[in-house]
């Protein structure tokens, strides 16, 4: 499908190439592309489905052929009939309200005759075992269901290739695994290319593995199943316990039972549960009812209320911020706008903000979603550093590999918190499976 020779790509106004010296031939089958954040994976994808260079005025050098023709000879939208794409964020890839309308949207774009449309909608939904979703409102679906619908919307145009850009990053392990199994079974007649940070979720789905490092191809060969990254438990020194009580929360859709957790300084606690089990609601409730809890939301940018780093740190108190700037390695960025920082820097700033306002317990909401290995290692180091300094770290996650960093566990299922458990929880597979968390390898 794609043939490139010495392909390089640069965004306008930038000095460095995002992609350099890419020579590759995509063959039929299932290909995995891995690489750290910023290694050019998504840019490469956008060249495959021809969203780039047109939409960013990027500069392409070298040869780039799609289906045997130079990319420049295609009209906008022409390649997209043969290449379907599913993006990472389940919430920003739909246009219409219901599943049926969304499928029809694709057919209309491809100028399919009106009389054929209903038959094709029925056929694709039947083929993908999604017929029950036909009249559902997309907004009400779960993340996993949305990704399935996104695949259906891509496949209804009968593409020869299907590109998936980190489709699992917002899904919990059980949902992700169900999605992979479903895709494996349903998408038999289409070639697949997937970008993924954590390929272990896919089992032996792939034939070929391409690795990108800094915009260059660093590895290209047949796919070998690899285990996920491993994280060591952070060493903890527990002091006397403080008891936190979290009252009952009544939501429109579900109820969160009253709960309590015992927390000692220097502790690392993980709250595990599947998507929609109430973890995040519980965490917000904890932060709202206890002043010593500092919440770091999944997108730390939500916390920021001022327009530069130093004012952000100084907000709401009179303590000196110099020491904190140095400790978090943010001295050079004191005048930068908080929203212009990288994800890791935003997280550091958020922690600094929490510490300066006297929060002793740092609570992270899903800190690992969509993060690459380097970023996960940095998070692990940061948590270890905070624990050594005497703070307590608590995080909510469905990332079982990263959860190993904790020493105390709680499980959340349908609004009920159970625990504490220690590391022996990993041997209790029935308990984990009941909470939508699977531990066995593929």
């Amino acid at each position: 499908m794609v043939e490139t020779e010495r392909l390089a790509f640069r965004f306008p106004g930038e000095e460095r190439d995002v992609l350099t010296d890419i020579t590759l031939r995509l063959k039929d089958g299932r290909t995995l592309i891995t690489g750290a954040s910023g290694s050019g994976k998504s840019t490469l994808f956008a060249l495959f489905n021809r969203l780039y260079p047109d939409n960013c005025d990027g500069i392409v050098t070298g040869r780039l052929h799609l289906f045997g023709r130079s990319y420049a000879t295609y009209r906008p939208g022409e390649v997209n009939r043969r290449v379907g794409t599913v993006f990472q964020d389940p919430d920003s890839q739909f246009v219409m309200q219901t599943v049926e309308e969304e499928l029809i949207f694709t057919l209309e774009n491809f100028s399919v005759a009106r009389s054929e449309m209903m038959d094709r909608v029925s056929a694709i939904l039947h083929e993908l075992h999604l017929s029950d979703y036909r009249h559902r409102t997309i907004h009400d679906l779960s993340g996993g269901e949305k990704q399935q619908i996104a695949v259906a919307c891509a496949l209804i145009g009968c593409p020869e290739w299907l590109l998936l850009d980190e489709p699992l990053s917002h899904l919990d392990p059980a949902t992700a695994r169900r999605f992979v199994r479903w895709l494996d079974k349903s998408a038999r007649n289409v070639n697949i290319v997937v970008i993924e940070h954590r390929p272990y979720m896919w089992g032996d789905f792939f034939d070929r593995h391409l690795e990108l490092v800094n915009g260059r191809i660093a590895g290209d060969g047949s796919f070998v199943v690899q285990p996920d990254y491993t994280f060591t438990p952070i060493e903890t020194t527990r002091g006397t316990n403080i008891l936190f009580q979290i009252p009952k929360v009544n939501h429109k859709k579900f109820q969160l039972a009253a709960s309590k957790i015992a927390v000692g300084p220097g502790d690392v606690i993980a709250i595990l549960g599947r998507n929609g089990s109430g973890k995040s609601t519980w965490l917000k409730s904890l932060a709202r009812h206890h002043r010593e809890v500092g919440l770091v939301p999944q997108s730390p940018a939500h916390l920021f209320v001022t327009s530069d780093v130093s004012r952000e740190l100084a907000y709401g108190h009179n303590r000196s911020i110099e020491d904190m700037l140095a400790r978090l390695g943010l001295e050079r960025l004191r005048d930068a706008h908080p929203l212009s920082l990288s994800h890791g820097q935003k997280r550091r700033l958020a922690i600094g903000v929490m510490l300066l306002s006297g929060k002793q317990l740092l609570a992270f909401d899903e800190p690992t979603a969509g993060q690459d290995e380097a970023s996960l290692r940095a998070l692990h180091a940061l948590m270890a550093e905070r624990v050594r300094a005497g703070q307590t770290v608590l995080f909510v996650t469905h990332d079982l590999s990263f959860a190993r960093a904790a020493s105390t566990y709680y499980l959340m299922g349908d609004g009920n918190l159970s625990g504490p458990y220690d590391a022996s929880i990993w041997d209790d597979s029935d308990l984990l499976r009941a909470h939508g968390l699977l531990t066995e390898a593929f």
Partner: protein
Amino acid sequence: MTFHEMNPTIKFLTVTCLMFGLAFMYNPWTPLVVFFGTLVLQFIFSDVSWKRWGLFMIPFLLTALGTLWTTLVFGREASGQVVFSLFGNDVTEENVLWAATLSLRVLAFTVLSLLFTLTTDPKRFVYSLMQQARLSPNIAYSVFVGFRFFPILKIELMQLYETHALRGVRLDTRIDHVRHIPKLLIPLLAGAIRQAERIAFSMEARGFTGEHRSTYEVIPVTRNDFLLASLLFTLFGVSVWIGVR
């Protein structure tokens, strides 16, 4: 034959024409006839929930009463027979007629707008604009994305309020919330722009280019559309005749 089924573009044009025409009528009888005539037509040719209609009507009714009151009390000096006196101001016959005209005009505009909004599905309206009024699909589908966008934006706004409250921003009262809005605009906009770009990419990846599309949802133009339109125009004609007679 109902206003719900009526072609939205034709309905929109008809209602707009009537409102435009009403603006040139300087007597109380025309808007009065249009007001009751529209209600009768709405009663016969639609099944609008009258409770909803009534709720929507409340603010406009207050506006109409306000108009009536201010024009009576603060109306300019006018000749003619003094009907009664209000707070020491003499209210003449002309004052009364003028006040009635203005407030009835507000009411007539309102019933016409409500006839349109309460019987029109926004999605059908956009489809119809695309098919009958040659609205570009680029604009039409931006509107559709917008329909989906607002709930997402609302959730984002709630999240921002929540996290900012945790940072110690005072958000106890409604006024605190309003006062805090400027601080939320930049993060909210930054998020919205990122989302919009993602949706645009996703649309293009699904083959949307804004041209050469087929349509599934065909909004037809039928004889009934013209019948309903001419009913409304007849009503207006009659009201004008009664008014100038």
